[in-house]
């Protein structure tokens, strides 16, 4: 049962990943990518990492919907009425991607992986919280501040009104 679910999710994830580059509409590409991410969330749930799995589903839906706005906004053909392609520079791109895939796959096979130490925790959610709030606290605080600064910076750059300019008089 678990093995069947794993293969179904894994194959669907890869297939919808391929679909991202085969479809001719930006909206379809966005949602094919979302489907791929949701399958990865399902794989995490299969590993009994319930919190991470549910979180991947939650964040990926929100993130891809915001991404959809930007992807549609920046593309050459927002309405998808004219033919478009996600692939550019075909021959070189093929060569580069095959080389990168081969290098990564060789790395997986050739690396002498260390034997596993320790056992999975009883409650992975609790262990994750301990790690984030304990030894990794400084990193998380740094990342949090960086993300917040990026968000505020991009909003300030993209809006054309200042703090006291009201769009509508009240």
């Amino acid at each position: 049962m678990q093995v069947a679910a794993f293969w179904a999710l894994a194959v669907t994830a890869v297939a919808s990943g391929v679909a991202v580059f085969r479809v001719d509409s930006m909206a379809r590409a966005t949602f094919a990518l979302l489907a791929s991410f949701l399958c990865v969330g399902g794989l995490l749930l299969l590993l009994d990492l319930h919190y991470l799995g549910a979180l991947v589903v939650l964040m990926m839906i929100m993130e891809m919907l915001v991404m959809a706005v930007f992807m549609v906004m920046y593309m050459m053909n927002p309405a998808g009425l004219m033919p478009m392609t996600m692939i550019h520079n075909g021959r070189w791109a093929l060569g580069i991607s095959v080389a990168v895939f081969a290098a990564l796959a060789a790395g997986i096979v050739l690396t002498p992986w260390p034997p596993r130490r320790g056992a999975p925790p009883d409650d992975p959610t609790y262990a994750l919280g301990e790690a984030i709030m304990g030894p990794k606290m400084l990193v998380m605080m740094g990342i949090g501040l960086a993300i917040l600064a990026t968000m505020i910076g991009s909003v300030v750059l993209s809006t054309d009104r200042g703090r006291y300019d009201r769009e509508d008089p009240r």
Partner: protein
Amino acid sequence: MTPVWTVVALPVALGVLTLLAASGNAVLGAAASGAPAPLRHWDDPLRAAARALVQQRRRTFAADRLLSRVGVVTLPVAALLAAVVLPLGTRAVADWSVGVVWFNAMEVATWAAVWLTGWGPNSAYALVGGYRYLAQGLAYELPHMFALITVALGAGSLNVTRVADAQDGLWFGVWMPVAFAVYLVSALAMAFWGPLAHPVADDVASGAAVELDGPDRLVFAVGRYALLVVAAAAAVPFFLGGGAGPWLPAPVWTLVKTLVVLGALLWAGHRLPVLRMDRFLEFAWIVLIPASLLQMLVVALVVLD
């Protein structure tokens, strides 16, 4: 283990409550418009559903039919999947350790549903509605998440049943009033209902839903009422003590409390004007987010103590 009856009972209960919500809305609408016998309008949704089943689908030029079907169907499916972690009385269909996160994830799937429904038909007003829902999502989601985190913090668990059990004696709705108020606002927002129905508002000829006809419109409407029901039902374990109450058994109390919250949401839909999205966004970020963060701080101090 999960008793088998809950697996059957959940879709049935959701279906009945969805119909009840639609009926109640029709009666409230008739009363508001001054119809002579408003209660006689209880079967209006059934008539509309029967009509929708035999209606032809509207076709638009160069529509992305696959995406709009996916969007329409996602709405009721998301409502049902969000409901599996809610206890029916004392037992949930899926008593998961991270039920609160799961509920949040499924309810966020409506973002995709409404945007896809708006994008699919290749129609300007539908697209405007879809984009409005994304803006609404960015407005309500953060305060909503903070309210849910506050509840989990107060209970010390992400399991919905444990959250309900943690309110022994004092409901979270009583000692976390700000979180409860934020939750009720976001409940209206996630079902794009009443004052937060801007994505399907009249000024864009019912927005995201403008091109839906026949069975598509029926599924979309069912999904929206189901979301409203699930949002109301989730308020019970989160803020109103779950199935706890004197004399009556837990499932009955759960039902009674759900109906009270649902009634309040429906009533708000008829009493409050539709808010413009940019104004709600400003209110959400300047008022609701700081307020919900302060509420979380207070709860954290109480829990730590």
